[in-house]
């Protein structure tokens, strides 16, 4: 059995990486129809593998499905962290905190909807993130005209604005809920809102709002910390993660959320995450990430990592671009959290402890700082190899043996740092994620413009 299992696991790892490679290749295809067909096929292959059986074994059993789903959420979180740390150069330990924030926010919405049959949480969060988003974007545009406003004054304005948005959201959200909630109907005669379709829509909204919520919190947190010099950014983000974790542990005492049950963990979250949603959100994150990186915005983000002083001298708003990378990265973490919560159905503060927060960091470093493909591959490899294969193998040695994983991770990381500091894949990008190749310009036609250019002999090498 051991050998068969080992072989099967290796085949699965290779197959999943091959699947990823194929997906990224087909997404890079020039024809739109081939692209769409390829994406549908990539989705379908996995979907079929869940149900197709060889003998009495599904090709991908429930355990594999769990690994795959977690690999995808890890990929979303780690891509966000790579944007912040790998591409923008800002070492952050806060990513796990935003992941937890997204998970709890999304879970609370669907929990209230599904168990308490009220839409209040949905409307409060929805109105809250929309209003806060408008306030932040509006203030940013307005304040942009007054250059010399000190950061802390600006921060105070943003904070007041967001708090006001939150207050309005609580008021309006509960108001709307009290009007809408009768549509849930009764147990005997379920109303419109009790339908499965409504639940799916609420789930979708909850995940998206959770992502935006995490992004807005990261803006408010990042504005003062990133603008006042980033030397302490890593420490500050660590503090953030600890604060979030403490709030989770005490969510039923110092926060008004008894449903979250504090340190005992939140149970009863509807398990709405399907392969379709995991795939769709992973795709969304990959597309946003790649479109940002391979654009002028991405180059600005990279220039900050390369040389802040030179970036400033090139007209780059260094503080603004750090904030941008941080906010987008947190958005990904929040989305990942929302997806995760509805897959696992149970949220415990232990999952979001600061120690576990090193996992995405390890994934990013393994895959290579500044490599999107590396992060994706490392996320899948991490789950299937370390959490899947190794855990089971070690499990053969005794019930406590899997704990040795936590000794093996750091050793593996150490070896990698020594042998391949640029990460497993270095700067390689696959298919869709590759930078568009710019061909040299054909020589300009010999007009008067070309004459002075030609008169400058190239400097001797």
């Amino acid at each position, binding site marked *: 059995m051991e050998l068969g299992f080992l072989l099967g696991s290796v085949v699965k790892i290779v197959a999943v990486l091959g699947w990823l490679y194929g997906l990224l290749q087909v997404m890079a295809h020039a024809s739109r129809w081939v692209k769409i067909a390829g994406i549908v096929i990539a989705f379908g292959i996995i979907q079929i593998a869940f149900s197709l059986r060889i003998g009495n074994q599904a090709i991908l059993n429930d355990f594999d499905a769990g690994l795959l789903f977690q690999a995808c959420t890890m990929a979303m979180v780690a891509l966000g962290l790579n944007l912040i740390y790998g591409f923008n150069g800002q070492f952050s330990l806060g990513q796990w905190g935003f992941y937890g924030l997204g998970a709890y926010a999304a879970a609370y919405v669907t929990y209230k909807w599904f168990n308490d049959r009220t839409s209040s949480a949905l409307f409060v969060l929805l109105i809250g993130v929309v209003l806060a988003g408008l306030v932040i974007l509006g203030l940013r545009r307005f304040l942009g005209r007054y*250059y*010399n406003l000190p950061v802390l004054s600006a921060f105070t304005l943003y904070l007041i604005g967001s708090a006001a948005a939150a207050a309005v959201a609580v008021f309006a959200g509960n108001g709307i809920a009290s009007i809408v909630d009768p549509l849930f109907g009764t147990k005997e005669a379920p109303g419109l809102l009790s339908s499965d379709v409504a639940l799916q829509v609420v789930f979708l909204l909850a995940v998206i709002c959770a992502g935006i919520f995490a992004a807005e919190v990261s803006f408010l947190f990042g504005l003062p910390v990133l603008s006042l010099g980033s030397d302490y950014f890593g420490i500050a983000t660590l503090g953030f993660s600890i604060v979030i974790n403490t709030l989770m542990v005490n969510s039923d005492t110092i926060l008004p959320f008894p449903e979250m049950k504090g340190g005992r963990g939140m149970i009863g979250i509807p398990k709405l995450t399907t392969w379709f949603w995991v795939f769709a959100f992973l795709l969304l994150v990959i597309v*946003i990430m790649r*479109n*940002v990186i391979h*654009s*002028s*915005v*991405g*180059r*600005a983000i*990279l*220039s900050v990592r*390369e*040389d802040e*002083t*030179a*970036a*400033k*001298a*090139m*007209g*780059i*708003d*260094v503080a603004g671009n750090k904030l*941008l990378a941080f906010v987008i990265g947190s958005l990904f973490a929040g989305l990942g959290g929302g997806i995760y919560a509805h897959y696992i159905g149970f949220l415990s503060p232990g999952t979001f402890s600061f120690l576990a927060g090193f996992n995405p960091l390890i994934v990013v470093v393994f895959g290579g700082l500044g490599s999107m493909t590396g992060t994706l591959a490392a996320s899948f490899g991490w789950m299937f190899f370390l959490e899947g294969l190794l855990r089971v193998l070690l499990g053969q040695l005794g019930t406590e043996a899997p704990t040795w994983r936590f000794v093996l991770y750091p050793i593996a990381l150490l070896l990698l740092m020594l042998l391949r500091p640029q990460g497993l894949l270095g700067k390689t990008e696959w298919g869709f994620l590759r930078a568009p*190749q*710019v061909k*040299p*310009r054909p*020589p*300009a036609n010999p007009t008067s413009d070309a004459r*002075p*250019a030609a*008169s*400058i*002999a*190239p*400097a*001797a*090498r």
Partner: protein
Amino acid sequence: MANPIGNGTATSTDRPILDIQKLNKFFGGLRAVNDFNLTIKPGELVGLIGPNGAGKTTVFNLITGIYAPSSGDIHFLGQSIAGLEPFEITQRGIARTFQNIRLFPNLTVLDNVRIAYHFHAGYGLFDAILRNPRFYAQEKELTERAQDFLAIFKLDRVQNELAVNLPYGEQRRVEIARALASNPRLLLLDEPAAGMNPNEILNLMELIRFIRERFNLTILLIEHQMRVVMGICEWITVMDFGEVIARGTPKEIQNNERVIEAYLGRGTAHVA
């Protein structure tokens, strides 16, 4: 396009493009810049020279906003720029190169230059994410303009190389190309000839003359190589210990007692 030496363009009335008044910068007890005045008219090519540690680079850092002045004021195109963020000053039309080259080492030569277009890229974050027609159009245009710049500087063949892998002379040219891509009115060059051989220096002088005409630039230049300074500058300001000790045409400076003294050391002036 051609810009007669001195003042000849439509914008060049007598209004200075850069006007520095009573500029001071202290580092703790050190007076790095002391009551520094400088006025540059549009189209001029001005040299800033002085012995090591005289405060020349500090003046550049003050103009570009890397340091905030301890006191004094800097006007660019009639508006005060003292206290602005460096990126805002660049966006108003001052670009610079650095004494010790500061490229974006792990980015390609093309990307190094394209970054200078960021603040006038013509599209924003949401255009990039949505990949709308505006993104494609603007990205194509700025890429082509960047490539034209590279062609002018004979760097088109290395556009996809990482900047860090280029030889020194080419890195210098990338830095100048990158500065020009931000579309400046005033270009500050900090010791562009440092580390170049005589042949490269000749090319550089040719290049500076050319870009100045081609892009209608005003240039302020720090340089230790007297051949360069005397060869291309119309006006020269000499600093020593943070203070201006002389200004004038190259001829006047060459024969100035205080300048000779500053360069050869105090007390030996009468020998020289």
